[in-house]
């Protein structure tokens, strides 16, 4: 078991966003999280690497309780790559530096090794020629592929995706999803919050339907998409699938 949450709760002020989530994510598993907006799915993801500090419960990553105040969260985050809806590439750094700053400054990898690895990853996403560009010069789809590469350069044990295609123009969604599919095939553990139901069906090993801060229903893509049992799941899916 790679990540486990026990009774995970989070509230912002008086608003209870997560109402106790118990989940365990296995190594190599691709877990897709779906649900209406405001349901808490992004918050759930952001609690996994403590970008949001849970107000209750535990998150256990590779056997360590990371919600323990004594846990070295910076060290743990090195093992958890994250990809954001808004890309969040470092605007002041070139693409090459975006990718290598973590390995060099945080992990202490030599510049040569970090750049060699970065070039290899850039080749995989077909953006080698952008190494010297700056984020402002890239399209949304290119930025997101670089963001994925930046996370992969840290050689994480799990990749967290927070609506990675929601801010993209429709014609750029495919190029990002293709990179993610390839990753899933290689056996990367992934937790993906997304609205791309087709993609969820294709690559997900397990689908979580979150609503009002709890996991209302979970199962294989086949179970969730073709035979949803919970009326809320049925309602949600009929809305998003019939547009």
């Amino acid at each position, binding site marked *: 078991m790679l990540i486990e949450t026990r009774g995970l709760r989070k509230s912002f002020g008086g608003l209870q966003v997560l109402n106790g989530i118990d989940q365990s994510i296995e190594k190599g598993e691709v877990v897709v999280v779906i649900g209406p907006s405001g349901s808490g799915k992004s918050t759930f993801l952001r609690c996994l*690497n403590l970008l949001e500090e849970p107000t209750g419960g535990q998150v256990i990553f590779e056997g360590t309780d990371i919600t323990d105040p004594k846990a070295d969260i910076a060290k743990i985050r090195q093992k958890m790559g*994250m990809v954001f809806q808004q890309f969040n590439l470092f605007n002041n750094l070139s693409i090459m530096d975006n990718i290598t700053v973590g390995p060099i400054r945080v992990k202490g990898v030599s510049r040569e090794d970090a750049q060699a690895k970065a070039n290899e990853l850039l080749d995989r996403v077909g953006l080698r020629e952008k190494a010297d560009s700056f984020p402002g010069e890239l399209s949304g789809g290119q930025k997101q592929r670089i963001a994925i590469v930046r996370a992969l350069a840290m050689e994480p044990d799990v990749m967290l995706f927070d609506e990675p295609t929601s801010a993209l123009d429709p014609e750029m969604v495919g190029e990002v999803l293709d990179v993610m599919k390839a990753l899933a095939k290689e056996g990367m553990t992934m937790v993906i919050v997304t609205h791309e139901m087709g993609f969820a069906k294709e690559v997900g090993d397990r689908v979580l339907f979150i609503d009002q801060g709890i996991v209302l229903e979970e199962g294989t893509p086949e179970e969730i998409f073709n035979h949803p049992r919970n009326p809320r799941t049925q309602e949600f899916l009929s809305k998003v699938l019939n547009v």
Partner: protein
Amino acid sequence: MGDFLEIFTGYYPYYLQGARNTIVIALIGVVGGALCGLLICLMRMAKGKSILTKLMNGFSRVYIEVFRGTPVIVQLWVAFFGIPLLIPMPAGKLLDMDLECLVPCLIAISLNSGAYVAEVFRSGIQAVDGGQMEAALCVGMKKGMAMRLIILPQAIKNVLPALCNEFVTLIKETAVISYLGVADLSYSNNVVKTLTYSMLPCYLVLAVYYFILCFVISRLVGLLEKRLNRERKPGNREMSKKAQAA
């Protein structure tokens, strides 16, 4: 009018020397102010529950209030008499200014400027998208490193025009240090005044010098600002590369 022209043409070496000194003083002041302001700003923005962060928050607040709430000339006199009691002042001269007078003044100007620049930095840091810090934390950086490598470089670019304007402000504000005997532009004017006994023409010449300094620098800041804005737009670097090749 005749006196004005006579002073303008006859005594310009005095004024030019003073103008040079004023620029040097303002330049040192703005660099000192930026360093001091950055420090105060980071203390002000420090988050956490420890006593140390609380102390830093409190200190920075008091600091900003005190320096904004008292006249510069008073701060200068306090520094002038107070600082030599704490640390021995060096003898000797920088250009033609006595270090004994100059150093306390520069310290006071830097500390004063820091109180204003701290708020400039704060808005510059807050203007950096919050996602940048989150992304930095997600590649395993600690907050300090993220600040140093990712946030501050972007914030400094944001505040560069404001810092240059602070330089212009200091050129004008430092006029008061002539009262303490530092040989700046106003001090040169005092010298010419005692040589010529003509008051109004001297002050008019002085005004012209200050105006030229401030006007030219403001224009340069304007150009810099335009350039920075252009650089931020996508695609421009490619264009300049092509332009270079052509």
